[in-house]
């Protein structure tokens, strides 16, 4: 049981390394883009939602909608819900996955509940929002021409209280090439 939660630590570190966690801007995410982008109204994409919990965590965790229809270039909101049905506080931490793989680079989360510890008190239930958009460049990428469904999956793990998850000491500039979405045809 302890091993399972410790396994999430290197997993988290791995995601940190790739994602540049810590609130720093990740190359390719332009916050000006959100303000200026134009919805591609004719390209409707169905986003479906999965929720998983690792065996180590006793939360009930589920999406509040099974799907939502969005268009690239328009911000969208969706909700999950988590409940701690036990009689002790539980701290969880989540990560996410997007399929199809190639669409993931166009899936931009502005704000959500992932990668940071979330504590639920006994019997507490909370709404967990995800605020995201699909990059308008999705519509002009020929590899995405047949993609009309994107699935977002979150998985919660239990994090032991007081565990600090150190940010790896690496150079963010080394991430720049790997995070830019490919826009070349």
């Amino acid at each position, binding site marked *: 049981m302890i091993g399972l939660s410790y396994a999430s630590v290197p997993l988290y570190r*791995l*995601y*940190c*390394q*790739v*994602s*540049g*966690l*810590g609130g720093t801007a*990740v190359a390719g*995410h332009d*916050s000006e883009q*959100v*303000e*200026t*982008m*134009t*919805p591609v*109204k004719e390209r409707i994409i169905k986003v479906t939602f999965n929720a998983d919990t690792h065996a180590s965590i006793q939360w009930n965790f589920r999406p*509040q*909608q099974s*799907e*939502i*229809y969005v*268009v690239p270039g*328009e*911000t*969208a*909101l969706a*909700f999950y819900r988590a409940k701690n049905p036990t009689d002790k506080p539980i701290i969880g931490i989540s990560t*996410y*996955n*997007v*399929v199809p*793989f190639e669409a*993931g680079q166009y899936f*931009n*989360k*502005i*704000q*959500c*509940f*992932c*990668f*940071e510890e*979330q*504590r*639920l*008190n006994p019997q*507490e239930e*909370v*709404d*967990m*929002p995800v*605020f995201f958009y699909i990059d308008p460049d999705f519509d002009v990428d020929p590899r995405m021409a047949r993609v009309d469904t994107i699935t977002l999956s979150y998985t919660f793990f239990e994090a032991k209280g007081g565990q600090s998850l150190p940010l790896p000491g690496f150079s963010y500039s*080394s991430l720049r*090439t*790997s*995070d830019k979405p*490919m826009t070349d045809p």
Partner: protein
Amino acid sequence: MSTAMNFGSKSFKPRAPDKGSFPLDHFGECKSFKETFMKCLRENSFDNSSCRMQSKDYLQCRMDHQLMAKEPLEKLGFKNQMDPPPHSQTHTESQSSS
């Protein structure tokens, strides 16, 4: 698509959210706005575009209750949902979609 972290086959690279994590709404202060938004979705076949006002209101609620960093909602993609200011000489018309 090749990166230093490529494990030989295609692997998804999660990215941290741009603005970090939402604080949890432990007291359900914005629950009613969430319910209004969800009701709108159900009534509109889960079409996000039909419920932009409701999602804007939810995020505004979060900002009002210190559950989200305050910033102009135009910066969150809601420029088309904002009322023009009453003294409209400062109303900037950004170039709209075709």
